[in-house]
C-alpha cells in the first residue's frame, strides 16, 4: 500500500472508517478504531468526494465549482495527513 499522494491518486475512505454528521456539534466527523477526527466544512466536502474513482485533480476541479479559491496543494496535503492517520487509502492509475 502506497502512502504518497499525488494529483493522480484516487483516494477513498479506509475500510474501517466512517464519515458521519454529528448533530450535537453540527459538524462532520471521521470515526475509526479509537479515533475521532472533527472536520470543517471544506474537509467534509473533500472526503465526500473521496470515492476511489475521482483523482485528487478531479476533486480540486469539483471544489473549484463550489468555492472561490481552491489551492491544489492544500487538498493534497489534507488527504496526505489523513492517509498518514490511516483514515484514507489511495490507489494510483
Amino acid at each position: 500500500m502506497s502512502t504518497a499522494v499525488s494529483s493522480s491518486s484516487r483516494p477513498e475512505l479506509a475500510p474501517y472508517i466512517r464519515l458521519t454528521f454529528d448533530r450535537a456539534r453540527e459538524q462532520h466527523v471521521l470515526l475509526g478504531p479509537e479515533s475521532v477526527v472533527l472536520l470543517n466544512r471544506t474537509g467534509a466536502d473533500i472526503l465526500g468526494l473521496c470515492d476511489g474513482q475521482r483523482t485528487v485533480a478531479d476533486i480540486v476541479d469539483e471544489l473549484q465549482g463550489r468555492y472561490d479559491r481552491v489551492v491544489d496543494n492544500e487538498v493534497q496535503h489534507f488527504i496526505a495527513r489523513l492517509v498518514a492517520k490511516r483514515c484514507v487509502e489511495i490507489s494510483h492509475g
Partner: protein
Amino acid sequence: MDRPLGLLAELTYGCPLSCPYCSNPLNLADYCDELTTAEWQRVLGEAQELGVLQLHLSGGEPLLRRDLVEIVKTADELGLYTNLITSALGLSRRRAEQLRAAGLDHVQISIQADEPAVSDRIAGTPSFERKVEAARLVKELGWPLTLNVVLHRQNIDRVAELLRLAEEVEADRVELANTQYYGWALRNRDALLPSKAQLERAEMVARAARVRLVGRMDVIYVLPDYYSQYPKPCMGGWGKRQLTVTPNGDALPCPAAHALPLPRANVREDSLARIWTESPLFQRFRGTDWMPEPCRSCFRREIDFGGCRCQAFQLTGDAARTDPVCHLSPDHGIVAETVQAANDGTRPSEEALIRRPHRGRTL
C-alpha cells in the same frame, strides 16, 4: 464547556481473568448492583445527545453481560462507533456473529504475553490459546483488530516477540501500554515496575517496528509516567473529553476517580447531561482555576492539566496537588524513590503478585 467525545461503559466488574494490574477498584463487591439493559440503553441515548461519538464497552469482561448484543444494537442505532474491549474469553463464533450483525465496529483483545505459559500465569487462568483463536475469528469476520498488551517487569523484555504475534494474527493496531499504577497495580507496583534499561530496550524495538510496519499496523507505545519528566494529560483534562460509567451507574471523569473523596454522581439519580455540566464531581478539577503552584504558573498547565488527580491522591492523600510524577512537584521524591528501587540490581525479575478476585458480581 467542551462536549465529551468518548464514553467508557464498564458493564460489569466480573472477569474470568485475575490480572495483578487490573484497573478495577479494590472494593469490587460494592459494584454488584449492575445497571439493567434498559438503564444502559437510556444512558447511551443521553451520551449520544451530549456529543459522545465513541463507545468503549469494557469491564471486567463485558461478554459476561448476557445483554451485550442488545446494548451494541442500541449503540449502533444511535450512530455511536462501538469498541469491544475484551479478554476474548466468551467470544464464541456464535456470539461474535451476533455482535457483528448488531453493528459492533471494532474489537480489542488483551494478551498478557507472547508465550502461552507466561500469558496464562499472568492472567491467572488458561486463556492464551483461546485469545489467539478469537483474534483470528475477529479478522475472519471482517473487524478491525487491536491487540492490547499491558507491559511490566515480567513481560517487557519480549516486545519483539509480542509484535511478531500481532503481525501473525494480522492485527491492525497493537497497543503496548506500560502499566499505570492504580488500584491492583499500585498494590503490586514493586513487582511490576520495570527498570530503566528494560524500558529503553523495549522502546527501541517499538520505535523500529513503527517505522517497519507503517501503513500495515499501528504500533502505539504508551510510556510509563513514573519515568517521564512531566505527567500525562490524564483523560485529556478533567471533565473535558471523556467520561466513565461504572457497573452500578456511577459517572466518573477518570476511571480511577472512584477512590477520590468527592461527592458521587450516579446515572440512576441524574441525567448524564446534568452530571457532565453541573455536578460538583465533574466541576471540581475542570479548567485551571483549581491549580496550586507549581502548576498554576507553569507553561504546561494547558498541556498536561497538572497530570492525574487520582495519582496525586493515591500518592499524597490530596487530589488537588501536582501529580508527583512531575519533576517540578514538591512530592516528586515519592516517585523517585520507587524508581530507584526498581533499578536496584538486587531486585528479582519475578516477584509474587497479589491477584484481583474474579468477581464482584452476583451471577
